[in-house]
């Protein structure tokens, strides 16, 4: 199993050390090396796409064959994929529109612009409702911490809407609430975020060392 364990570990160590050194040497060759690595990554990614397509189609074929719950959705995957492939290949995406004006969209563009993008936008827009339901669950003052969170969230939300300036103006302090919101975001919030970021950086270094020295090998699927 040396080819499955030792060779990958040597490659990981050598490339890892070179990538680390790249940060500290100004040689133009170091940038060339990085560019080469990026290209390799893209080439491998290209091959990976075939694997992904095979996996996706195989999974949905199995679901249809076994008539699993929701198999009709799997059938829809094939309808959608076949439709896009056919219109994409047929007459450069123009389909039967042989004499299309220069500004006309191809059928392929049409499918992407008027089906794929609106569907994605729809899923994205659901986020607003999910946010509301998640906020409702979270902002219940069950204990002191939750109460603090509730007050801070209300102040930030209120400080971010134009009405806060009008309310502040009643008390002669037009910018009071926006300023409070900014203070919460710039100091306690930023401090906590930076704390998390610092911790993450240390964790990332520690994990990188474990990987470089072959202590952590589970990502290779070869066991400990």
């Amino acid at each position, binding site marked *: 199993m040396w080819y499955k364990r030792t060779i990958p570990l040597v490659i990981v160590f050598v490339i890892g050390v070179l990538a680390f050194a790249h*940060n*500290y*040497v*100004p*040689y*133009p060759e170091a*940038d060339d090396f990085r560019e080469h690595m990026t290209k390799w990554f893209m080439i*491998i990614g290209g091959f*990976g*796409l075939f*694997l*992904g*397509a095979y*996996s*996706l189609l*195989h*999974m949905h074929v199995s*679901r249809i064959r076994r008539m699993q*719950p*929701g198999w009709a*959705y799997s059938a829809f995957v094939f309808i959608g994929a076949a439709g896009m492939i056919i219109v994409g290949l047929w007459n450069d995406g123009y389909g039967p529109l042989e004499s*299309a004006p220069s500004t006309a969209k191809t059928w392929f563009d049409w499918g992407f612009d008027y089906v*794929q993008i609106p*569907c*994605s*936008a729809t*899923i994205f827009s659901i*986020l607003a409702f*999910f*946010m509301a*339901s*998640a*906020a409702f669950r979270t902002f219940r003052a069950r204990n002191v911490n939750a109460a603090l969170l509730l007050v801070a969230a209300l102040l930030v939300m209120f400080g971010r809407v134009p009405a806060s300036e009008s309310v502040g103006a009643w008390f002669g302090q037009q910018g009071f609430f926006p300023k409070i919101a900014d203070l919460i975001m710039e100091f306690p919030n930023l401090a906590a*975020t930076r*704390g*998390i*970021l*610092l*911790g*993450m950086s*240390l*964790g*990332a*270094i*520690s*994990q*990188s*060392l*474990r*990987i470089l*020295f072959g*202590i*952590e090998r*589970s*990502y*290779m*699927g*070869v*066991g*400990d």
Partner: protein
Amino acid sequence: MTRGGFTALHFLLAAVLATVALCGGCMRKGVRLADLRAALPDASTVRLYDRPSDDGSALILEWGKVDDVVEGVSYAVEVAKSADDFETRQFKTVKVELTEDSLKSADPKYFGFSEANKKFYVATILPAKLFPPAGAPELTADHIKKLVADDVLSKEQSKLILAEMASDTPDEKLTDEEKACRKWLRRLKLYPRVMQLADEGKLPESKVQRAIRAMTDETADDALSGGDKADRRWLALLAAFIEKRDTKQRDQAAKAINKGVYYVRLAATDGRKKAYVLQDREKVVYSGQARVDTFKRFKLNNLVFALAFSGIVLAFIQIARRNPNLFIRRIAGLEAVDEAIGRATEMGRSVYFVHGLGSMGELATIAAVNVLSRVARRAADYDTRITVTNINPIVMAVSQEVVQQAYTEAGRPDAYDPDDVALSATSQFSYAAAVTGRMVRERPAAIFLIGSFMAESLLLSETGASTGAIQVAGTDSEHQLPFFITTCDYTLIGEELYAASAYLSREPRMLGSLRGQDIGKAFMMIAMVVGVILLTIAVAVAWFDADWITHLVKVL
């Protein structure tokens, strides 16, 4: 108006004009030569040297700051390829204004944070920018005439192209016809470069003819058919190849230019007159050469910290080998992994492992795959089905390998189904739709959301919460953490994500690295507290003008 009045008005006007002319003359006269000389630094303070910690692309001219320079004076740094070029005026000038941005202190990346840097001006000399390498050959009227003579272009076409070459109308103001003509011209601009390739013997005659045919065809892209369309596509590929070749040649030429020796003179100027730095009544010419440095000195602190922290982590790994019973703080989210998988086993439902959007090049994804291997092993031990959803084919392939290995190690290789570790979609919201749809239909008992997430994080976790699954999330995307904390039962925050695999493995060497990580964190916390105290003292000193605090700090 009388004749006398008219004359008086003329006289008045003439007087005003004469005054304005005199004042204008005075203004044009600018700064006195004596003032320019006074603005010159002492010759001993002027130095020309290679810019430190760089890739050999710059020289630095440095000189001492002169106080009380009169307004309107700036510095001119004249750069030539040889000392004789100054006599023939073949030099380039770098202008340096007397602002704080020109001080050495404005660029601590290369010069550090020394207070003394505020007393020096610097000029950055970039040889490859001052003396740029020769560009690729341009399309000229002669090329068009040759194409007409070869009967490749008609006279009408040549007129159109020549008119377009002379036009400077911006693209957005062109009519559709003019836009098409400009596109055609862009294709034709390849002609001299194609001929260059042909002269070098790098393009056979048949390909040259094909390129010329495709370049000179004025038909719009969408009106082409058959072979012409194929030719146009091939020309686009050829253009990309030529562009890449030009860039490479330009870069190589720039490197050669940067390696040369350059000669530099420094002068104070008001825009018209110049006073040069002199020595023994001669203009001083400095010479220097840029070189590639071996180390980015400005990253020294970064390197020292990285090495020190690595040393601590490696030391604790060694300690853990000898003493496997190191104390590691409890991480609630990871303690819940067994609970979540056990719950799925009892309920007879599956475990979901949802990868984020990251690729295999991101550390968070590698951490997620590491966690997956531990979770998959536990699920395999309990004979519980694990479903892994992926957006990236490479991550999917790695995950398949990891899960298969986990099943093999658990002694159940036959229980592994590759369809359980499949690609769900390759775009963000298609992925969210596919995964949330499966969650609702299959109602898993436990969901792990681990990796790098973006806007889909709340869609996934809120849907998971609505199915009643126990959820454990972990991400390095700090903006998504609030969503996970809100909707998941346990969230791995920050470094806990990277610690997860080591924590779950319970392997002494891995736990040792976690201990080292915690020590590094403690060091950072102490450094921050000390920094806050020192900064507060500095503010207090400035505020109260309290010298006693300064003395106290010095004593301490």
